[in-house]
């Protein structure tokens, strides 16, 4: 059933919430400054509750079913984490409380920084960036500041073709010129290609490891050496950390800076697109450049310090998305060393799907994968069926589609990341659905072309939306 837009409902004078009683007199604001009230609808509490309850029913989340969106790590978000973030002591805490009344919050920040350092094998962490892309920006600014501190002005950043779009965008936002490099035949970077573009004008490289093909960058150590040799820094996009917790050592790989996505690897929910959190982890030599304030623990007391003259400054008005940090902290405390097991099972799940589907869909790279695997629509070309149709048809089977047409290096990519929280039975039914769709592509291609049919709306006209944008009602 359709739901009217908010302002198509309501009647003037209705109330959807009550206000605390007025216990002071009316005063007189300066009439010259007073404005007209905005045209917001007046609704009753039930109007509001029904409106958003109905809207929620048209949404698909992890709690609704498998959401194998590659590179997004749509794992289960434990309910208890929401409870912890909602504790009055956190949810009602003002960021400028005196230190003596902020010790619990500070301790949480301090401990979470240490946990993330341990997990990545890096030396220091800032939890301030509000999302992965802001983490990348932070990393780029640190690279900029590092070179500046050495009186070196470098203008380029190497970015592989398998990188997330945020990588070049973050580099550009920081004023760097991205230099695109191609990954090799095996789907990973080769030292030769890096050596070709690496010179003293290059500030560093942004590498995603495991990369967006779900493959481990096997030559990362050599690549880091090449970059370091020419004075560059190695930035690792840790979006795919879920594959290698407790396995890989970023420091050993030569990584200087790495961001993490707490809303991916550490199970804080995506919230339909945020808020996230993108902590940045660095090696010792880059610690002076981390954002301020930083947390300090001295004589049993936690406090904030701004005394880092080489710091890149602030990325957030306060300390980042603290409410998200609480959830990630709860998750780490609940998992402990089992985070390694989570990574192993995430990798097991991806390889299991890869093995079971590779006879039906073309596998972009037939190699052991990490936490995700990438197929293409090549086998379906004969039936003139594309990745797009396969994805839409999956909706009719009750699954969220995988990431499609990414990474760009694979034509018609279907990028599947099951995560470790999906059980074997669920994977089996996903595989069964994909196989049925492959069969339908042969026998009843119209089913794919018309899909989805069981959703709130059918295929949307995105072109018209972009051509004549209507962004408000």
């Amino acid at each position, binding site marked *: 059933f359709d739901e009217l837009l908010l302002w198509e409902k309501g009647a003037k004078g209705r109330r959807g919430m009550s206000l605390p009683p007025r216990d002071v007199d009316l005063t007189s604001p300066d009439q010259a400054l007073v404005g007209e009230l905005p045209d917001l609808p007046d609704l009753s509490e039930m109007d509001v509750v029904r409106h958003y309850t109905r809207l929620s029913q048209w949404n698909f989340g992890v709690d609704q079913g498998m959401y194998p969106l590659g590179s997004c790590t749509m794992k289960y978000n434990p309910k208890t984490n929401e409870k912890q973030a909602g504790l009055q002591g956190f949810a009602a805490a003002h960021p400028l*409380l005196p230190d003596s009344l902020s010790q619990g919050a500070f301790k949480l920040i301090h401990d979470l920084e240490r946990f993330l350092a341990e997990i990545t094998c890096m030396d220091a962490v800032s939890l301030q960036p509000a999302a992965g892309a802001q983490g990348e920006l932070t990393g780029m600014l640190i690279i900029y500041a590092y070179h500046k501190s050495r009186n070196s002005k470098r203008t380029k950043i190497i970015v592989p073709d398998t990188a997330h779009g945020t990588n070049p965008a973050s580099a550009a936002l920081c004023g760097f010129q991205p230099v695109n490099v191609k990954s090799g035949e095996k789907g990973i970077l080769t030292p030769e290609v890096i050596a070709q573009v690496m010179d003293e004008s290059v500030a560093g490289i942004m590498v995603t490891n495991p990369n967006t093909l779900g493959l481990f960058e096997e030559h990362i150590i050599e690549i880091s050496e090449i970059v370091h040799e020419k004075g560059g820094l190695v930035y690792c996009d840790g979006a795919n950390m879920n594959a290698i917790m407790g396995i890989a050592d970023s420091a050993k790989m030569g990584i200087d800076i790495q961001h993490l996505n707490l809303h991916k690897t550490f199970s804080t929910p995506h919230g339909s697109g945020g808020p996230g959190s993108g902590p940045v982890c660095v090696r010792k030599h880059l610690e002076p450049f981390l954002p301020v304030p930083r947390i300090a623990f001295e004589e049993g007391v936690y406090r904030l310090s701004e005394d880092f003259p080489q710091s890149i400054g602030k990325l957030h008005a306060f300390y980042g998305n603290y409410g998200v940090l*609480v959830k990630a902290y709860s998750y780490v405390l609940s998992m402990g060393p089992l985070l390694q097991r989570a990574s192993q099972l995430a990798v097991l799940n991806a390889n299991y799907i890869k093995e079971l589907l590779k006879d039906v869909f073309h596998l972009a790279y037939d190699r052991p994968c990490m936490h995700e695997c990438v197929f293409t629509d090549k086998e379906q070309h004969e039936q003139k069926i594309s990745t797009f149709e396969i994805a839409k048809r999956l909706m009719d089977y009750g699954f969220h589609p995988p990431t499609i047409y990414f990474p760009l290096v694979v034509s018609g990519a279907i990028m599947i990341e099951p995560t470790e929280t999906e059980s074997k039975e669920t994977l089996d039914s996903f595989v069964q659905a994909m196989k049925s769709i492959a069969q339908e592509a042969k026998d009843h291609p119209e089913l794919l072309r018309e899909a989805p049919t069981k959703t709130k709306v059918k295929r949307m006209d995105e072109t018209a939306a972009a051509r004549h944008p209507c962004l408000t009602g």
Partner: protein
Amino acid sequence: MRYLPHTEEDIASMLETVGVEHLEDLYSTVPSGCRRSTPLNLPEPLSEWELDNHMSGLAATMGASPEYTVFLGAGNYEHFIPESVRYLLSRSEFVTAYTPYQPELSQGTLQAIYEYQTLVSRLLGMEIANASLYDGASALAEALLMTVRITHKEKIVISGAVHPAYRQVVRTYFSSTGYEIIELPYLEDGRTDLSALRGMQDVAGVALQSPNFFGCIEQLSQAAEITHSFGALFVTAFSEPLAYGLYKNPGIQGADIACGEGQSMGIPQSFGGPGLGMFATFMKHVRSIPGRLVGLSRDVSGKRGFVLTLATREQHIRREKATSNICTNGSLCALATATYLASLGRTGLGELARLNFDKSEYLKAALRSAGFRIRFSSPTFNEFVVEFPPGFDAVYDRLLQKKIIAGTRLARYYPELENCWLLCVTETKTREQMDRLVREVKA
């Protein structure tokens, strides 16, 4: 482990399918030199019951309402959030979904964000709003970057009465660019000194905050007029949008971009984050906007629906040429604000804003009667600066013992404002609590 569904039998059978013997064998492509030498040194897993105890212990150390009477504002506000809003935001269909890339499975988020964009545009008096940014500070930085993109000029001007942290974030965002940042001083009445602005050149954008960091209402129309006179764009920032339930909105006063922090509208304080970066402008600038946009469209059967649109501005399509690098934004916070504004309505917004204003005027008057100086004479909304006698620090600490937190010390941000404190009063403070504060500071 309750989050890991695999039994030993599952693992064995899946490993067999994959064709390896042990879980460790799955990592054959990870060179030994890349591997960590020690197991994860993390505390042993806590049961949910232990976690509850541990977290309650941490939370109990905090000076949070209602146990404490908190007169802090300065960019983070204590407002009452109805339980209906909290409940709706807890629904996992919203909480556990991703960015709505697949519109057929995301009409809930998409319609809600489309409505959010509309409500925010109306609140700020602008034509369009984006789907949200991280917070007020980065929204201001993005706005100023946008003025550079549009005007191709290389200077930006920002008032010294803008939230100090916002100015710091702007400096950080601009630190690797060659663009110049000019700061405008503030006047004795607490508003920005616009005189320095006249006749400026090569300026991309000018930003004021209103109410500004001191709580004072700026002369936005005048600032806009001067800014436009030299071809720059005028940006109005804010940290307390509830003020627009009483005062004139940015749009009507000539802002080209209105942006700021939406936390005060339905979002828990959460020690400063997550907040909500509100960002609104006019249609002519639509293709320069950072962040996501939701648009109205139709499906193949002609039914109304919503999609992410104008993605060609965005990083996942346009990569280094994108209008910003933003991917994850603040959807759930935007939804909170939409739900909150829907609950409040036009009528409620007006009443709530008046209540904030009147309560803060009450405290202002009471402090003035008690002999303290209200530092700035300009009109304010729900926070203001008061000058206490030297040595107030000790009084402040004494009040802490009584579970009263008497505002923020300004000298930390403005050394010249020694003995000045920024106090905030929202609808959550009772007259009795304000009277008690005045009694205690006098004592």
